[in-house]
């Protein structure tokens, strides 16, 4: 496959890769940019582990091609905290202990950030529905709802997710 140059930003930094544009964003992040915080869980949009924000919208990076993000702004789990200060959603997951093995957590957090960007006061029902695309095999679902609720309370003062 002939390499093509693709430019976009990741966590606020401009990047350029020259490669097959049909590779997934997940693979580019993990293998080319060594940003391994975004996880592979199924590769077919069924589990949410690979969720990132593309121009502020949640996307399954396993099912998003490099060619689709040219010129766009990607935010991955590594780009949420500002320095030592965690994003309110990360802080809420930490406070609530809303993770066990933590492998689903990056995707969960990105999904929750996107959810709260759209709806600052979601009901538990809306949280459950909004997070239904994310699988957690350790069964931390109840705590995840609690964490999203908690983050929602903390969010009004928070700044928008960086892009």
């Amino acid at each position, binding site marked *: *496959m002939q390499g093509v140059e693709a430019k976009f930003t990741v966590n606020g930094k401009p990047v350029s890769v020259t*490669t*097959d544009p*049909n*590779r997934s964003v997940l*693979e580019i992040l*993990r*293998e*080319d940019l*060594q*940003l*391994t*915080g*975004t*996880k*592979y*869980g*199924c*590769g*077919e949009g*069924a*589990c949410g*582990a690979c969720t990132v924000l593309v121009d502020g919208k949640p996307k399954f990076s396993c099912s998003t091609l490099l060619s689709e993000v040219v010129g766009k702004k990607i935010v*991955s*789990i*590594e780009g*949420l*905290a500002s320095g030592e200060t*965690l994003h309110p959603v*990360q802080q809420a*997951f*930490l406070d609530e*202990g809303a*993770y*066990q*093995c*933590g*492998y*689903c*957590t*990056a995707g969960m*957090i990105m999904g929750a950030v996107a959810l709260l960007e759209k709806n600052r006061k979601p009901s538990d029902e809306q*949280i*459950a*529905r909004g*997070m*239904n695309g*994310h*699988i*957690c*095999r*350790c*069964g*931390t*679902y*109840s*705590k*995840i*709802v609690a964490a999203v609720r908690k983050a929602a309370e903390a969010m009004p003062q928070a700044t928008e997710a960086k892009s």
Partner: protein
Amino acid sequence: MKTSTDTMALYRDDDDEQIIEPVGYDFGLTRRTFVQVLGAGLLIAVAAPSIAQAQESGVGGRRRGGGGFTGSSKPVPLDARIHIGKDGAITVLTGKVEGGQGARAEITQAAAEELRVPVDRVTLLMADTELCPDDGFTAGSRTTPSTLPSIRSGCAAARQLLEKWRGGDESKTYADLAAADAKSLSQVPGTDVQITPTSEWKALGKPTARPNGRDILTGAHKYPSDIIRPGMLYGKILRRPSYGAKLTDVNTDAAKAMEGVDVVHDGDFVGVAAPNTSIAKAAIKAMEDSAKWDQPPHPSSKQLFEYLKKNTKGGVPANPFADEVSGAAKSLRAEYHVPYVQHTPMEPRAAVAEWDENGKVTVWTATQNPFGVRRELANAFHVDESTVRVVVPDFGGGFGGKHTGECAVEAARLAQAVKQPVALQWTRAEEFTWAYFRPAAVIECQASLDASGTLTSWHFVNINAGRPGVESPYRCEKKNQQAVDSAPPLRHGSYRALAATANNFARESFIDELAAATGKDPLAFRLDHIEIDRLRAVLEEAAKQFGWSDRRAKQRDANVGVGLACAMEKGSFVATCAEVEIDPAKNVARVRRVVQAFECGAITNPSNLQSQNMGAIIQGLGPALREAMVFEEGKIQNASLWKYEVPRQADVPVIEVYLVNRPDLSSAGAGETPLITLAPAINNAIFDATRKRLREMPLRLA
């Protein structure tokens, strides 16, 4: 509390490797390695009964598929447990792994407790076979009962050493101890070690967050699939198209011609290493198209239960109490079915392998059995175990599904051939097909009752799944309880709680059938037959918190039902009440509320125990309602998270967990037992709602 730890050896792992107390043990490791990793300081080794040896040769250790690990082959007489750096940094070493079950927090707590330091002063170095003692595999709920005592006595020994050495001078710290001169230490007499009694716990018994939690939330933690080594390539394996298929021909030319691709062809093993995963995939695809296979026939999941019965070793055992049955006031007979399911950890198997110029291989991988995987690698490559190092970073879930090292061996084979580090991560479909499964089961039950509704005989046979949970806790003079083998069509192995789920599903459902046959309330029928106080206590607690008698008495919506179940397993006790609602349009059951009471002796970390129970209940929902492997012609037909539906957020019922604390009793593990009463409680609730008795998992009404 006294422990058996009475030997302590001290090493000073300074550059001069001065030995303070010469001991005649084979340490099995080089002090140099410790210095490299941990820096100079004091290394405290503890002679404790080898945990690996004490562990039985497997969780339900019968002919489990895969791995071929059976306990430790070599006694480890002296375990290096604690390293105190000259800067006072305290590192505790354990062969246990962290896959989400909370071992890291719990062991850190235990160490801090005995060292009398805050939890954040202790760093836990886990599961590096080069440095850590062999604590056996992390499974079977054994971390709490078996690892904690040895960590605690080791740390208590270190604390006592400090206390004796400083002779009342409180200004002297662990750092001073680590820097002290050898002579002053050798004059400290050894002693019996006292570990802290439960009543004085300061760190243990409290909710403790995972020490590396922050790294998990920021994406900084490196899971096995995240390890990147300089010059690393990405691997992929040519998989057989069906179980038992043999490769007869393959053309590797097209793959070899791809830029940066190395093909490794060694007998039936065909794999590639490539600069990235996409190229590796394309190379495999090119070979798939040309590969020819011999494909033997393989049974279908449609005939699974018939197949298991037909292939029962020695035939299906008959009920020895046939006379009792024929003369009884009442008797019942039923056959229960449990299909194959899979663990489906969120992180599929992954490994990175790297060989050095001396032929030594290091593999970073996820496994619940690091020393077993080291052995597996040594066997696969016919090398000595001392030339294999297995490192297990905290990984993304195991649930009994990661005892083996297939992926580690594959990555190592590729890396050996290309002389560069190779990363291999199984796809979800590979995990669904080539990892192992929880054994399927046919369970035959027969029981007789006298006129008063008391059990008079009990016959219970599990075909294929194994012994755990086969023992009934109900009083009955004539009991026949057996587990017999069959010829399993799929490769099966350990799973969180293993056969205890199948056996308790059958028994607790069947007990409900018997209660119904006598016209008694299922709770009353159980209590009439339970003699074990701890079991009775959790059952009564769950029933009380659920409001069982009210719920049974009340007139209810025709589509709602309640059910309960109780069990004991591995020294812990559990009871579950469930409420289900039947959706008549879709004819499916939805679980609305689950109330669980759980007791495992003294509680060491209540928040972790809550999480373990919650997690087990949610995980148990899948096999109870939806999960089952479907296979046909040697191929898994639902090897996808779209088709094999694990529980999601919207499936989660209201869950209430009530922990019964028994500080007077020693702590048992809690990773498994919380799982085993969910399915029967749901089944019994479905019966209550529909009067229809289901006898097969998953519980499908249509």
